[in-house]
């Protein structure tokens, strides 16, 4: 039993942090948030250059390590659907040499479009494959992706974003991360249909997205602590007041607790152990910690955190979007309850 990261994992975490910090300083994050397509190609290329998109494929990394990568992406507020791309990476690798090359080069950006519910998406047999039809009103990184991974029941469809019949319309949303309304009426060649792949990809997605969210929560906490050290009122830094300190501690407690659950869930998946209860528990805890971190960070920042001059709104907006992407806490708790009352508690 050892809950510490290995020295290699610590190095991995540090190196991704450093790499992203170099590409995404505060000014760059502000510039990106004003752009129609919020994406930093150089950062993705750099991640690819270090092999992060191919690590698993080369047998050098497990899901725990990918979680460390996405955690760092969350801390840095990396634009783009990195969680979806990494979750689907093994399937993208196997979907043809061109896709594998593009993935390794950081040119493949895949967003996961979960079944939005009725009428949702449908697959019907067509001349040389399948016809995919359907709509989703708000796909978070839809504008940014080179590919869309559409879940239809347990199947996954790999749709090039510029294919005929793929219609993406920019829609303004809570965070400027590249939201689009999506409508599909397109042909899917046989190779683009991945039957039964959705559950496994979604499990991985849940793990790495949870990790990314915990990174964003941590970043908001650090910002709050830094702000509290500098901001003075009543003659001293507000960080010297217990009420402020205790708020920060509550956030740290929530983030660390959630993170331990994420690592355990990812570890269990790596070990081939049942992990559904753990993934849902982790997701529920992460949803809570992200909310706590946002609320407390804003409270500590006072009105300055409300102003768009601060980076905090970029993080808190993203955190809320990620929570919707991951699914609400209530939903994860329903899953936990189902497993719990089916006698799956250890």
């Amino acid at each position, binding site marked *: 039993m050892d809950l510490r990261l290995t020295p290699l994992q610590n190095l991995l975490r540090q190196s991704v942090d450093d790499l992203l910090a170099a590409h995404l300083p505060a000014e760059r994050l502000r510039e990106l948030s004003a752009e129609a397509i919020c994406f930093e190609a150089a950062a993705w290329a750099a991640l690819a250059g270090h092999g992060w998109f191919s690590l698993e494929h080369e047998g050098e990394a497990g899901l725990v390590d990918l979680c460390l990568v996405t955690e760092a992406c969350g801390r840095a507020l990396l634009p783009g659907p990195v969680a979806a791309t990494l979750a689907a990476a093994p399937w993208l690798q196997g979907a043809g040499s061109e896709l594998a090359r593009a993935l390794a080069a950081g040119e493949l950006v895949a967003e996961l479009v979960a079944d939005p519910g009725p009428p949702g998406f449908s697959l019907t047999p067509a001349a040389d494959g399948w016809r995919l039809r359907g709509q989703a009103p708000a796909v978070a990184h839809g504008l940014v992706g080179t590919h869309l991974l559409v879940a239809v029941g347990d199947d996954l469809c790999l749709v090039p974003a510029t294919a005929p019949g793929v219609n993406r319309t920019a829609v303004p949303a809570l965070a400027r991360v590249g939201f689009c309304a999506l409508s599909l009426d397109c042909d899917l060649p046989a190779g683009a249909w991945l039957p039964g792949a959705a559950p496994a990809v979604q499990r991985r997605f849940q793990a790495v997205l949870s990790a990314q969210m915990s990174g964003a929560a941590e970043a908001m906490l650090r910002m709050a602590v830094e702000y509290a050290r500098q901001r003075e009122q009543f003659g001293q830094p507000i960080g010297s007041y*217990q009420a402020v300190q205790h708020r920060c501690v509550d956030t740290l407690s929530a983030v660390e607790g959630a993170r331990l659950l994420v690592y355990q869930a990812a570890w269990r998946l790596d070990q081939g152990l049942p992990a559904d209860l753990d993934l849902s528990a982790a997701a529920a805890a992460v949803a809570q910690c992200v909310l706590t971190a946002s609320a407390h960070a804003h409270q500590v920042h006072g009105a300055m955190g409300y102003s768009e001059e601060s980076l905090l709104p970029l993080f808190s907006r993203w955190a809320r979007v990620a929570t919707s992407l991951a699914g609400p806490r209530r939903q994860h708790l329903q899953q936990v*309850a189902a497993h719990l009352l089916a006698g799956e508690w250890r």
Partner: protein
Amino acid sequence: MNFSFSPDEERFRQEVREFIAREAGPEVLDPRRDTTSQLVDTPERRAFMKKLAQKGWLGLSWPKEYGGKGLPGLYEYILNEELAWAGAPLVGKGVGIIGNTLMRHGSEKMKQFFLPKILRAEIEFALGYTEPEAGSDLASLQLRAVREGDGWRLNGQKRFTTSAHFSDWYWAAARTDPEASKHKGISLFLIDLKTPGLTIQAMETMGNERTNEVFFDNVWVPGDQLVGEINKGWYYISEALDYERFTLFTFGPLQKKFEMLLSYVNSATRDGVPLREDPVVRQTMATLATHVEVARMQIMRVITTAGTGRVPNVEAAMSKLWSTHLGQRLSNAALDLMGAAGQLIMDSPHAPLDGKLELSYRCTVLDTIGGGSSEVQKNIIARRGLGLQLQ
């Protein structure tokens, strides 16, 4: 990263489980106890601890030169978890706080007198820190020790010394230099509880447990019963408190209470509807399950960090903070779920779950206060974990 125990660790756990099943009688495993489960306060419990000692299981993580097994702390933790799960007394302060402090700072004479007795379960200790005017502000303690001949004369009072009425020796903090700043004038003493001048007075609590006031009336303590160096007591206490927080805190009792509640929810109905089908009940249980798992992870993190030789003060603070508040939430949720009958105490015929969660509701009130209040834990985490200084 590894979230499972090794085969050796699992084997040890199994061995302990079988030992408890064989050797621990009904008094030792008294299911009517809550927090008092861990106390060695009856002859049967003392006898059981002696059996543990004979097995060589006290001082598992002590260095071999002191008669221990030199094993990783994880083994002691596994032992304590199995004991806690069964409701048996735990390997406590003697092996933990007192033994460790003596090994680090005690005189040779003290080590030779106390350490073997601790390993043989021949001695029980009470902890004397808190006073009426010194709780969270422990450093302001006033029990006065004045040098007299080759010893010390002690006058004053301790409060909430839970183990005083059944223990043999007292580990007490006293002020030896009233002129120095408060943290720098405290010393630790080991005092025989049979020493003349000591009066123990019972205090009953809302959690059914007895604690005590201890009055010192001109108590004379020999000089060689000063622990370590004079006026270094605060440093030793801080070190010792870190050990108390992680050796006395186990996950088992919390897990057991959660599982009791789960079994109740699985079978109970309200107005003809099974509780397990109520969506709000499901959310409540799922939230508790998630939080209980976090508690388990945090304790594992404390134990595994301690195994690397670092005192896990921030991790231990976070773990204590989380687990204690969770215990209260769980107890409260239980009373909400168990309806009117949930309020019945243990001796009532219709008390659900034998009244154990009703008792838990009353006992857990102390948990966020004793052993370092939640506010103190947050201060520690803020200062040492986040680098935020106090005003």
